[in-house]
């Protein structure tokens, strides 16, 4: 192999293509849990444009979106559905609040499924999101 070796696994390429054509908000993470793509409907939830952030490390995503559990405490990383999916190789679901890059706090639910290749390697996870209550302004409990 030579040159720039930055190509994503083909399963993630196809998942991105699928996500980019859906009206359902979708986030894609790689095997480390780093964000590699989110579609336009997800941009509305995150209050961020994907083109502005491109790829986001897990830490970077947590810093910007600062997810909170139902009691208002920071959501533990290991409870994030996308992280559960890639680490434990199982589907996962969670409800939480997150802070959009636009300053709006939203209540969201997320379901993640692990993406495993035919060869048995965990490549990442596809996370479907939806807002379950109206947007809440930052600062309101």
């Amino acid at each position: 192999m030579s040159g720039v070796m930055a190509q994503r696994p083909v399963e993630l390429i196809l998942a991105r293509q699928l996500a980019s054509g859906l009206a359902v908000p979708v986030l894609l993470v790689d095997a480390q849990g780093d964000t590699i793509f989110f579609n336009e409907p997800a941009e509305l939830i995150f209050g961020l444009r994907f083109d502005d952030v491109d790829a986001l490390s897990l830490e970077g995503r947590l810093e910007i979106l600062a997810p909170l559990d139902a009691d208002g405490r920071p959501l533990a990383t290991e409870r994030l559905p996308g992280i559960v999916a890639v680490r434990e190789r199982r589907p996962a679901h969670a409800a939480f609040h997150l802070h959009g890059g636009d300053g709006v706090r939203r209540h969201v639910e997320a379901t993640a499924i692990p993406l495993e290749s035919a060869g048995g390697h965990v490549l990442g996870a596809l996370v479907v999101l939806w807002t379950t209550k109206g947007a809440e302004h930052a600062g309101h409990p």
Partner: protein
Amino acid sequence: MRATIWGSRGSIASAGPDTVRYGGNTSCVELADGDGTILLLDAGTGLRRAGMHLRDSSVPIHILLTHLHMDHIQGLGFFRPLFEPGRELHVWGPPSTTLDLRARLTRYLSPPLFPVRIRDLDSIVELHDAPSGPWQIGPFTVTAASVVHPGPTLGYRVSAGGATLAYLPDHEPALGGLAGGPAWTSGHDLAAGADLLLHDAQYSDAEYAERVGWGHSSAAHAVAFAEVASVRRLALFHHDPDHDDERLDGLLAEARGIGRGVDVIAGCEDTSFELSGGG
């Protein structure tokens, strides 16, 4: 490294007076590089003639299967070395977590589709899942990776003596998008900077529009992919069985017209390429 095309037709063999120049046999490419090791990319109907040509050799033969569609395995049952007592053969193919390669190949190489079972062959046949990282076969460094095509499908990158050949006979990168740059282009890392790329070019643009998702490329997609991957030379491959020599001449001319930095050539049966790192 010497590459010989024994078959470049897609889907089904198409022998006849209208396909004599491009050839009618399905996918099979032989690679050799001095030390005698023989690599065969795919086992389409072209494999039969490759086998006749290899019959006096006693070196191990490695067959690298991209996938198990019939046009890529049909030659196996008619490959003479398979019936030579004591002959060592290795068959590599896409891994699967459900059925192993032997079980999947046995669906074809067993009655009623074929009279002989793999276990009854006189040769010593070893089946392997292609590893996820590069591996060595004699002088060849081989890399396999999944590419966009229905069912588990690999493309191959083979390097030896400073030269690199990329082989993606069944590939629809347009389905994953061709505008996302290297990171989001299926097959990119296999083909990056290759001296010669053999790539799916089954359709015209109009035909592709009616067959999106079938797993193949238009000649224009093959050129676009070659440009993203910065390959030196692109050989159009996996020709549609309904395209006669004249039609393929036309597609080649169109592809040459749009290929800016890529030398576009015809992947014709019975042609050989001498590849060296310098191009």
